[in-house]
């Protein structure tokens, strides 16, 4: 199932901090810290509760005054990668 049809949320078992230019996320047992900057940090702010992928894209489109479809095409691989790194969870 494509990510566009699913709910996305931050994983509850990660450690994180906001910084002046992004968000740092550390997955316990992981190798390093993942840094989310720019749209990635804005994405993190949207994921504090389960949210549908299209709703995230719509929210970011509003915030950044951008096209939601363009954001969706950029964001889908990012979310997949963050899910692979156990930073976010995609509810299936």
């Amino acid at each position, binding site marked *: 199932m494509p990510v566009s049809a699913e709910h996305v949320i931050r994983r509850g078992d990660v450690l994180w901090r906001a910084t*002046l230019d992004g968000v*740092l996320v550390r997955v316990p047992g992981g190798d390093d810290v993942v840094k989310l900057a720019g749209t990635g940090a804005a994405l993190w702010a949207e994921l504090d509760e389960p949210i549908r992928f299209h709703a995230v894209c719509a929210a970011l489109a509003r915030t950044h005054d951008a096209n939601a479809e363009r954001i969706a095409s950029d964001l889908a691989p990012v979310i997949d990668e963050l899910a692979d790194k156990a930073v976010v969870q995609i509810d299936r």
Partner: protein
Amino acid sequence: MLTRPWCRSIDEEAWLARLAAYGLPGAPPIDGLPEDASDLLFHTARHKLIGMLAAAVAEGGVTLEDDGIAQVARAHEGAMRESLLLEEVLLEALTVLDEAGIDHRVLKGSALAHTVHPDPVERSYGDNDILLDLGDVDRGVAALIEAGAVRPMPPLSPTFDRGFAKSVTLCWHGPSELDIHRTLAAGPYGHTIRLADLTRDPVEFALAGRMIRTLPPDLHLLHGAIHVALGDVEARLGNVGDLALLAAHPEVDLDTVAAAQEWQCAAPVAVGLRTTAELGHDRTPLEDWAHEYEVSSLDRRRLAAYADRDGRFRRQARASRRVLSWRDRVAFSRALLVPSRANRAARDRSQPMSLRGRQPD
């Protein structure tokens, strides 16, 4: 008056004090960074204030040029990366203690970041501190060592950790320091604190989906004041700022003084709290109490045991003997005079450690 020799000027010290007061009622405004801010940023981090600076920049409390913001952002990111690593180590340590059935309270840095500061990004820290019931100290240390922690300095005697030590220092994951506390202070005041009080009314905070127990704000304040008064010869302004934040906490009031008095710790608590005057914020009733408190001659003698670095442990040991029971005094003195072989070997000493020696864990 310049009170910290590392500051280049009174203005520099005053700037750091204003930063420590950021967000407190009546706190004075903070100027921007000077053009060459590298030294000041170094001292900001040294005083555990880089998080306060980042928060002030983010909220417009400090106005900086782009270069300045970039410098602060880099320094803050480094501190937050370290804090996240320490929190991972903390979670591992707490898991080990949980599996051994040992109750615990997280002290200082991580706990203050999550329960006292409005946002944990404000507080950076450099180690982890965990308080155990004195009956669990030996078992807790053994469980952590079994799990991979390293104890650089073996105990002075088999009963020293649970009987007399302030804390046991362990290393885990390289240089990451983990202090397992039996009490909140070294020396005589560490022996007069009523340890059973420390486990009452725990507060919880969430860390990576787990609920972690720590002290309630009034006990954090007592610990913070004692630490500022007795811990470092030169108090860090981040710790002083924590103290002012705790004194203004809605759950902290003058009743806190009663616990300090019951612990025979009113003097160090008052001395610690007086340091917040440097911050220039609106004083709370608790800080007013501290300024009016008259230190007795007995407490002046006890407090003298913590002054200056040279001979500090010897003075603390002598002062500790005076507050211990006769039986404990014998065991304490024996441990200092004839430390364990492992301890001696670790210290690379051939002669018995005496009261002239340096401070153990």
